[in-house]
Structure formats: structure tokens, C-alpha cells
């Protein structure tokens, strides 16, 4: 880990993201701290996913995307022209709402990210693979069938495979976009358990529509509404004594 315990891996400063001139998130200011699980909650169209995709520049792929403000990583704006986007995305690993195993073997799925970076050393791949699968609580379930097709795994196993695939790259921050939205409670619990272990090494940003999950599986919670950050604070405080009325209304099920 190159990030020390004091500097935030990511500092978002006055960040606005727009599609075709329509802002999806507006003037966002927040920091992602080392070794924390930050949950992002909010109703639909509140900009949660746009925020997440801004952090590893996946929004660059969308036509009509423009931004203003800064996202600092080690003091440098990730949108600067000389930033290596590949390296950025390796260090800010993204897991999507639906598990997307590539149509290959479990082994090839896991090895893909490192192979892209030019690392093909078998021993190194195997070593990282065991560690990554261990952190994703998947090693015992797949260690004897690494060369089977990834799509034969169950939905929950596939999602843990996707997490392990990202962990292979030893990212600084894990970006999880509603990773449990299609999963059963047992699979969800396994992933939440994995997050506890993972925050020892990584910061985690967890976008979720499930406020109970945010309450269970995060250290801090941020509440987004219509593209604005309404409130951010320790999870216990947000859920028991929110400072803003809108946060309280959302958590009480008044809207969204």
C-alpha cells in the first residue's frame, strides 16, 4: 500500500458531472478515507452510480459526458491529461451490479486483469489468485475447478468471482455498484463479510439501494439526493440522528 494512514486515497472537490449538459451530480465535496467502508445511499436518479463511475473514469465512455471540479488522488487530479487511465482503473477496481464473468474459465477471468498489465508469470498469477479468492471467500468453492467455465457458478459465486477478479490487481479502492442487488440473503451475507476483511487493505465505496445493508456493512454513510450530497457522517449517526430532514425522510421511507 502506498497510501499512508492519514492522506485520503481520494478527495473529491466541487465535482460536477453532466451528460449532454444535464448535470447528474452537482458540486460534490467529499473524501474517501483509508481503510473505510463508505456507503452511498439515495433514491433512484440521485447520482450514486454516476459518482462511482466518475471515480475510475468509466463515464468517459458515455457520449456527451462533461465534468468540472477535481478528483484528487495523491494530490493529482485524475482527469488531468497525462493520467494513465489504465493504471487508474487498476487501482480503483469496479464491481458492477450484475455479475459479469467473461465467457472463459474461472482461471482466465481472474488472470485477465494482470495479463492486460503485461504480467504473465504463472507463479505470480497463482499466488495472487489464491489470495484474491481467499479474500472473496471463494477459494474453497472453486480451488478444484479453476479451469471450468465461470458461467457455471451460481449468481453469488459469480459476483464473488468478480470481486476476486478486481482484487487480483491489488487496488487501493474498491468501487461496488449495488453488488448484491440480484443476490439471495446468504450470498449477500458472504459478500458483506468479505468487505469487513477487505477494509484492512482497501478503502471501499459501496453504492446500495438497500439502506439496511448500508447500516450493516459500512463505517460512514453518504446520502445523495438529485445529484447533491445531502449529508455524510458515521453510519450510526446517519441512521439514528441524521442532521438533515431529507435524510430522515428517506430513511423513514417517505420517498424513493
Amino acid at each position, binding site marked *: 500500500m502506498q497510501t499512508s494512514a492519514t492522506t485520503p486515497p481520494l478527495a473529491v472537490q466541487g465535482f460536477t458531472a453532466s451528460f449532454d449538459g444535464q448535470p447528474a451530480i452537482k458540486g460534490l465535496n467529499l473524501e474517501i478515507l483509508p481503510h473505510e467502508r463508505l456507503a452511498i445511499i439515495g433514491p433512484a436518479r440521485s447520482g450514486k452510480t454516476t459518482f462511482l463511475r466518475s471515480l475510475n473514469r468509466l463515464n468517459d465512455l458515455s457520449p456527451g459526458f462533461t465534468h468540472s471540479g477535481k478528483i484528487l488522488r495523491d494530490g493529482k487530479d485524475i482527469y488531468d491529461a497525462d493520467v494513465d487511465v489504465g493504471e487508474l482503473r487498476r487501482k480503483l477496481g469496479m464491481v*458492477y451490479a450484475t455479475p459479469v464473468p467473461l*465467457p*472463459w474459465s474461472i482461471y482466465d477471468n481472474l488472470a485477465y486483469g494482470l495479463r492486460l498489465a503485461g504480467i504473465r508469470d504463472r507463479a505470480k498469477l497463482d499466488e495472487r489468485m489464491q489470495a484474491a479468492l481467499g479474500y472473496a471467500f471463494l477459494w474453497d468453492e472453486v480451488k478444484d475447478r479453476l479451469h471450468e*467455465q465461470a458461467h457455471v457458478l451460481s449468481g453469488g459465486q459469480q459476483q464473488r468471482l468478480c470481486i476476486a477478479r478486481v482484487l487480483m490487481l491489488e487496488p487501493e479502492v474498491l468501487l461496488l455498484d449495488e453488488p448484491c442487488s440480484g443476490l439471495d440473503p446468504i450470498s449477500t451475507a458472504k459478500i458483506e463479510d468479505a468487505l469487513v476483511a477487505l477494509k484492512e487493505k482497501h478503502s471501499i465505496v459501496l453504492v446500495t439501494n438497500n439502506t439496511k445493508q448500508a447500516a450493516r456493512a459500512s463505517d460512514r454513510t453518504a446520502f445523495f439526493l438529485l445529484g447533491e450530497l445531502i449529508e455524510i457522517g458515521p453510519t450510526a449517526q446517519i441512521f439514528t440522528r441524521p442532521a438533515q430532514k431529507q435524510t430522515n425522510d428517506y430513511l423513514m421511507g417517505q420517498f424513493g
Partner: protein
Amino acid sequence: MRLSPVTSQRLAVGFMWLLTGITFAVLVFILAFILVHGLPHVTWTFLTHSPASMGREGGIFPMILGTFLVAGLAVLLAAPIGVATAVYLSEYTREGRLTLVIRFGADCLSGVPSIIFGLFGFVFFAITLGMGLSVLSGSLTLALMVLPTIIRTSEEAIRAVPTSYREVSLGLGGTRWQTVFYVVLRSALPGISTGIVLSLGRSISETAAVMLTAGSALRLPRSLFDSSRTLALHFYLLSREGISMPNAYATASVLIIAILALNLLAYALMRRFAVKVGH
């Protein structure tokens, strides 16, 4: 009188079976007719010897080689260009005027009769560029002819690859080209190879365009600048000039079996690949 639902259902199914049967019967009849007339004359000597007295005697070895060279080279030239165009259209540009023009051009090109390609190839490759009636002129012409097919089938196959695959690859730090090469093309390969095999079949069976560009020499082609007669053209000339109907049928049998074998091979390869990739 109204038919009961059960009766009308039976009638409809029966009618569809009948129509399917007719289609199948026509196919089988044509194939059987040609093979029955041709196969008895297909001997080892026929396959391995040069023709004598304009094809009345002897074999078809130069035509087999000529077909292989002209069609093979055509696809070898067209496939990389076609696939690259398809990748450009679907991965590297946003939809706009340029993509519309390219796609419209490809569609128009695929509707042009082959004799027009032949005429163009004759005037441009054979005369203007001085290649003469040759294997090279013929394959260049055929390459232009099958290019639209390869572009459009490849494009369809590439578009069928889920966007989420691309996002995963890019999200793992892949460049756009790595993503295209390792994920998109790999997943689209069965569809792309279907288009290429179709094009190879079309090149092998083309007559008009090769007659005007590759010529109809009976001798063995010794270089790409030699004229060569393809199997399809040989068959046409044998029957058209009334030289030898038995040898015409025999040539047609060889042609049909070659195309059949090619399709089966492609099908087997695709199935094997599909199993490996896991679709």
C-alpha cells in the same frame, strides 16, 4: 362451416410440414441429380490430371488449384479489411454521417450483380493496372465482391457482444484495443467466421466475375499472374459449349462436395469453439 380449433391446428401444421418438405425435396433432388450424373466420372485420374482436348478428355486438376488460389486469396485479402472495417464501425466511431455513408456503401455494393464487378475488375485490374487475366485480378475482384458480406456479418457479430464485457475489460485497466482484441473479437469469432465461410463459398461458386478477370486458361497456373480457370467456370464452359456433359456433371459434383465439406468443417470448428468459449 367453421373448422374446430383442433382441426385447423392440424391443417396448419400439416401445411407447414408440406412446404418444408417441398423445400427439402427440391434441394435433395438437385443434389442427387448432379451427383448421380457426375460421381461415376469422378475418378482419381480425373482429379489429378490436366484436361485434354478442351476438357473432353483428361481431368480437372488445374481448375481445382485455380479455384483454391483465386477464392482463397480473395478471402485472405477481404477478411482482414472487412473485419477491421467492422471493428472501426462498431468500436471506434460514434454513429454519424461517416458510419452511415460507409454502411450505405457496403449495402449498395452487396447488391451489385457480380458481372458488374467482373467488368470493373477487367477494366481496372486487368487492363489499367496491367495485371492481365490472372489469378491476382480474379481474386482482387472477388475480394471486392465479398467485402460487404464480411463487413456486415462481422459488424452484427461484434454488436452482439454485450456492452458489459467491454466495461469489465476497460474497468480492469484494459486499453480500447486490448478490449477489442481479447474480449470483443474473441467473443464475436463464431459470427465473424460464419461470414468468412459464406464469402469463401460465394467466391468458389462465382462464375461471371472470374471469367472476365481470371480468364479461362486450361493450363496449370504457375504464378499469381497466370490466367486460371475455376471449377465453376469450367463447368459452365463445358456445358455451354457442349464439350462434355459427363465431365461437366463430374466437375459440378466436385464443386458441390467441396462446398459441402467446407461448410461442415466451418460448422464443426464453430461448434468446437463455441463449446470452448461457453455460449
